């Protein structure tokens, strides 16, 4: 029997891969390579090149293994058959025995498995059986102890792993809470988050508490990382961009000044989480600034402020333009603050947003106005950021234009004299913003020799309820008798009127 090899292991077969058909190979390729996707001719060629070195040994072994079996087949077959027969006989006898034994208890079911030979020769149920009382097993204490020891060892190992895991967990928790504490110590607002999807510690890094009503409230989650450090994750992605102001002249052809400052810490905190929080907060501030400016710009469309191509463009007239963009933070930020016009401009914008936040906060603190049945003002009006700045810039330009043209007029009309005073009274309450918060007003006094004098009030150019030049004409040199009162919208109109009034008060000698 020893010369017949019967094994459950797959015999090495001399499979001739060359003869396999495509329909056979393709499924095998898919099975071997998981997918057909990565199988390319190039990768195969490479593989073949790599395999060339190793293949020699393999081939030798293959040769050895694949020795053909020389034993005569019939002999083997007969022996096999004999063995099978013997085994069959043995098993039949065993079956008969068991059947006969059972037939004393359950004759019908036992009779089915009895061989006909047995049935005919021995009556059913003729073999009986009875329980032999088992001999008393001696109590082996060693076995029990052995088992116990094994269980205890297992338990100990488990406890050990648990303890070590707990220790590492505790260490992680410690680093986490230490991180949280250090963040909390810097004054950040932390709160519990119990949402369906996120649970943990939330952080308010935005400006909602400072009065901002921006769509992104600036809420993030402080998560514990795998190593136990605090990971800061903002709820909404905040793009790392900043507001850049470019001041151009000559119809935007010449760039005069570009701002390069943006909100950031002068000394970033060493803690990377805190640094990330600060950075995100600053980015959020810049984002809010830009979108508030864009929202406000829509109100100013008739004042030559356009929102196009992702930028807010302010046309100041006379070819001067201010372009406000939201651009990516440069890789290497400038470290020094250059007091260029654009830098100052963008600084003023930021101060104004902060101020607007404060105003909103105050408004939120005051009791709300009674509800109106319908209508009512816009609950979320654009913040005054661009408007105060623009009002002053445009006003100043207008006043200087007025001064220029009046000067020209006074050279041709001898009796004409004028004086411009701009209201510079700053309110001490809002001293940080100086006169930005007050609407600009200039007063212009014009004297037409002794015959009359006029008072011209030049208000903020962005208001719409009043004329740009509010003109009151008085008789004589005092301001008592009003002879006329009117309002002009354009400087040309004022100029024309002044010319007329000057001509009238002092007719030209040539005529």
């Amino acid at each position, binding site marked *: 029997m020893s010369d017949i090899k019967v094994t459950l*292991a*797959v*015999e090495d*077969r001399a*499979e001739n*891969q060359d003869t*396999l*058909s*495509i*329909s056979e*190979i*393709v*499924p*095998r390729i898919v099975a*071997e390579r998981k*997918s*057909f*996707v990565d*199988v*390319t*001719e190039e990768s*195969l*060629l490479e593989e*073949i090149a790599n*395999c060339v070195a190793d293949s020699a040994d393999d081939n030798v072994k293959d040769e050895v293994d694949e020795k053909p*079996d020389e*034993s005569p*087949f019939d002999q*083997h077959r007969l022996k096999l058959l004999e063995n099978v027969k013997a085994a069959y006989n043995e098993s039949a006898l065993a079956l008969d025995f068991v059947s006969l034994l059972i037939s004393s208890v359950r004759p019908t079911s036992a009779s*089915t*498995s009895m061989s006909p030979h047995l049935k005919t020769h021995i009556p059913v149920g003729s073999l009986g059986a009875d329980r032999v009382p088992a001999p008393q097993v001696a109590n082996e204490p060693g076995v029990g102890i052995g088992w116990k020891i094994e269980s205890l060892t297992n338990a100990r190992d488990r406890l050990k792993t648990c303890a070590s895991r707990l220790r590492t967990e505790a260490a992680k928790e410690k680093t986490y809470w230490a991180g949280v504490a250090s963040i909390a110590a810097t004054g950040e607002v932390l709160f519990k988050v119990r949402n369906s999807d996120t649970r943990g510690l939330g952080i308010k890094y935005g400006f909602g508490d400072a009065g901002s009503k921006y*769509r992104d409230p600036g809420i993030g989650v402080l998560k514990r990382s795998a190593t136990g450090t605090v990971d800061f994750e903002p709820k909404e992605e905040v793009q790392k961009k900043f507001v850049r102001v470019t001041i151009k002249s000559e119809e935007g052809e010449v760039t005069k000044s570009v701002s390069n400052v943006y909100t950031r810490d002068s000394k970033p905190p060493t803690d990377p989480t805190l640094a990330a929080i600060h950075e995100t907060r600053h980015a959020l501030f810049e984002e809010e600034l830009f*979108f508030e400016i*864009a*929202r406000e710009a*829509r109100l100013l*469309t*008739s*004042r*030559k402020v356009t*929102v*196009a191509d992702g930028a807010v463009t302010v046309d100041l007239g006379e070819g001067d333009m201010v372009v406000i963009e939201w651009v990516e933070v440069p890789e290497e930020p400038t470290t020094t603050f250059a007091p260029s016009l654009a830098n100052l401009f963008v600084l003023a914008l930021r101060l104004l947003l902060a101020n607007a936040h404060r105003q909103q906060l105050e408004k939120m603190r005051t009791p709300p106005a009674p509800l109106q049945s319908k209508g009512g003002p816009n609950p979320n009006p654009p913040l005054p950021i661009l408007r105060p700045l623009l009002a002053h810039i445009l006003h100043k330009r207008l006043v200087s234009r007025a001064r220029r043209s009046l000067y020209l007029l006074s050279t041709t009309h001898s009796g004409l004299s004028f004086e411009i005073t701009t209201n510079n009274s700053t309110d001490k309450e809002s001293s940080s913003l100086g006169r930005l918060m007050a609407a600009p007003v200039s007063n212009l006094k014009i004297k037409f020799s002794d015959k009359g004098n006029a008072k011209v009030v030049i208000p903020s150019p962005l208001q*719409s*309820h*009043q*004329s*740009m030049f509010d*003109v009151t004409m008085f008789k004589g040199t005092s301001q008592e008798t009003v*002879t*006329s009162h*009117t*309002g*002009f*919208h*354009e400087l040309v*109109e004022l100029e*024309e*009127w002044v010319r*007329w009034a000057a001509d*009238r008060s002092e007719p030209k000698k040539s005529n």
Partner: protein
Amino acid sequence: MKGSDIPHVEANYVDLGRAVGTVCDNAHRELANVLETLPSTPADVAKKQALLEVLVRARQEFVRTYVLTKWAKVSEDVTKCIDVVAWLHGQRNCFDNLNHMLVGLGRDLGAAKSRNPDLQTAVQVLTRGAPTTFGDHDMAPKKKLKPQTILRTLRDLNVLLSVQLAQSTDIPPQFKRYKIANGRATFTVANAFEVDVGIADDTLDGPFFFIDFRLLFGDRKELPPQTRGMLERAGNSALAQRGLSALYSLLMKFALNYKLALIYKQIMEMSKGLWSGTLRHRFYQERSLIALEYWVSQHATHRPKSTLEIGIFSESDLRIAVRWSRQGEEVPYSEHQIQFGGESTDVASLLEYVTTLHLKHIISCVYTKLRALLGDSSDMVSLCSDGHKLRFRLTSLRSTVFTVDRLTGKTVLENATSLILSAERSLNELVSRPDQAASVLFKLRLLSLENDIRTRACATGWTAQNVTLSTDEMKTHFGFTTRYVLFLRQPQWPSNWFVVVTVPEDGSLPLWWIAKLRVRKDTAWTAECMDRIHVNQDLDSLYDYELLTQMVTFASHRIVLHPILDELRAAKTPFRLLRSAQHTPVVAIDNSALVTSWSHSSLLILPEMSAGSMDMKLHVQGRAKTVMNLPSNDSIDFDASTGIYKLTLEGANTPGFSLVNKLKERLQQIEQIVSYIELIKDLGLELVTASMQQIKFKLGDAQVSVDIPSELNPNITLHLSPTDPHNIIHSYLQETLNSSGLRPVVWLLQTTRNLYTTLQKLQKTRGGDPEQLEKIISNLSISDLETRQKQLQPRLSIVPRSAAFVRLVYPGKMNIDVTLVRHSATLDGVKFFIKESPLELPPPPQPGQPPVAVPRKLQVWNGSVTPDVDVGKAVYLNDGIACEGDNVGKVLEWVDKQIGK
């Protein structure tokens, strides 16, 4: 065929009698039993129930017995029936037994069953000595395929694929571009996807299978494995069922929907950013459609929506298309030609493109409409070069730019003033923008015009007042097309006078009116009079300061003139008002009712006002028919060369001033003067000076002046020079002048010149000079006066009785009367009668008696004394002498001499 009989059953038969007996016995026993046991049952109900049960049971038994007795009548049939039933039962038992036996047989045969012979393995074992390939039923790991094999297979596959694809007929056109390599065919659909397909069979019509799929847009990330697996399954099933075209449509749909999702993501991002509040979007996934509404406005909620529908519209033509609906109406592709969803999937640029087109559309629509509305003055509006803006000239100085903000869709008007801003607001609330915008802009122009006029008027000292005129009034006065009316006034004017500026809606130039209004009971006003002022204007000089200043003068004049014109109207004097704002108003009057023929009939009245007050002078100008050389003075001015005369009337603004009366008065005055001058000319006298007050002319050597009646001096007065001899009869002459005019006076003066000269001479010689006398008297004291009375008493007094009758009184001697008689019949009909009049009048004659002749003292009257000097022609008339004007002096001297004797 008759079968055998059913076997008769005899077992278990019981006699009926026995059965009945048993039943009865049973019933009886039960009843008895019950009756015995009942007393032990405690409850009454239970007793009854137990009894009832027994009775019911007994009844059932008896019913059955009854049935049996009935059956006994047909015992034959019942017996038969019983046999049949018994037989049938037997049959059923047979079948049941058979069934059981078969089951048992099957079970018993189990042991006899043998395994299926594994013939294939058997053959292998027989031929090779061991089972080969399939023996392990793929349970054992196989040896890895050699890369060489795979490579070869791939190359084989390449060949097979190219053959198969070349032969294939159902390749969709989108799959015409393919590449065969690596044992697979790669189909590429531009901007969509790439798919790798392989074959698993070497038959030429074998099915393809799905290998790999890649998206060719977006960030080209690997698809998540779940999606990929799902796609592979779906792809393989599509390939198996309907081939490549099914695969194409499956994958294309997948790719396009994926793309749509990416687009939608972009839109979501956009609506958070700069476009926030201006977009409204929805993704209909089941329809593969994104509806994107742009220019969402809170104000114009009723305006039809402008939307972009991005999606797959056709199953047959799989691509992303855009349907654009501009304010509710779909724009055909030929117009917009949007290329989207293929190469470009940038929604921002799509929106930019669409909004630009929309903007251009609006601008061009408004432009066309506005040009149509403006008519002649269509050069007021012009398109900016790129068509994104519309420049609209509102007034000479002001213009606005109309455009639409591409982000929000809001209408924007540049150069904001409060007026323009309110127009912008109403433009933004319009429902249908291009249709109505033009009319709003047009209205804005009218309002701006009105506003400009108001501003400038206010700058020159006018005040604008809000006055509401009823619609009817507006229509009657200004016509149907006028809506914008401006009421201006000057502070010093009466409160009900206005200058009205109307801006006609047809775009023509503003009209100027002067109006007198009256407040009615309610706040409305009604016009009492409304007069057009003709202004020479074009748009630029429409409201310049010059005009407005002139307008003050003109309108003030016109206001003051108004009552005068009313008076003229009332007096039915034909007149015409020559109006022009650049000049003061002039009234032309037909004065034929006022003056006679000396002047031309037309009379111009030019008012003149002092600045700042309402005092007014009227300058009247007329032209005399004949050229007169009248000297000018302050009240009248004659132009000697042209005959134009000018006179000035003052106080025209005072109440109660009557032009007609004044004019009549002044014209009469002139007429008088003119008539005097004419007379003087007629008489051949030399005119020395002439003025409205006085006419001075030469009469011989003397100068005579006549005061013309005027306001100051209502009477006509004659002035003679102090040495003039006619002074004696001055009062009579004045009387004559008053009663009969100048002519008789002049005649008298001429005729009696000789007489009074002589009389003056006589008085000088006889009576002394009265002046001298005066002097003497003034130097004397009263006592002296008495003493010298006699001496001073003149020897001759001249007592004029009338202009034509003078008495010379020689005190104590006689009286001489000189009478002027005129006989008009004769040519030289002027005669002087000099006669002596008695000192005392004779007593009046008795009736019937002839008058007694009074004795004459002088003897000269009858011609008895011949004059020693030549006295000319004289006729002696007994009691007097008649002589002519030339010689009356001489006669008188002679008579005087005679008296002196």
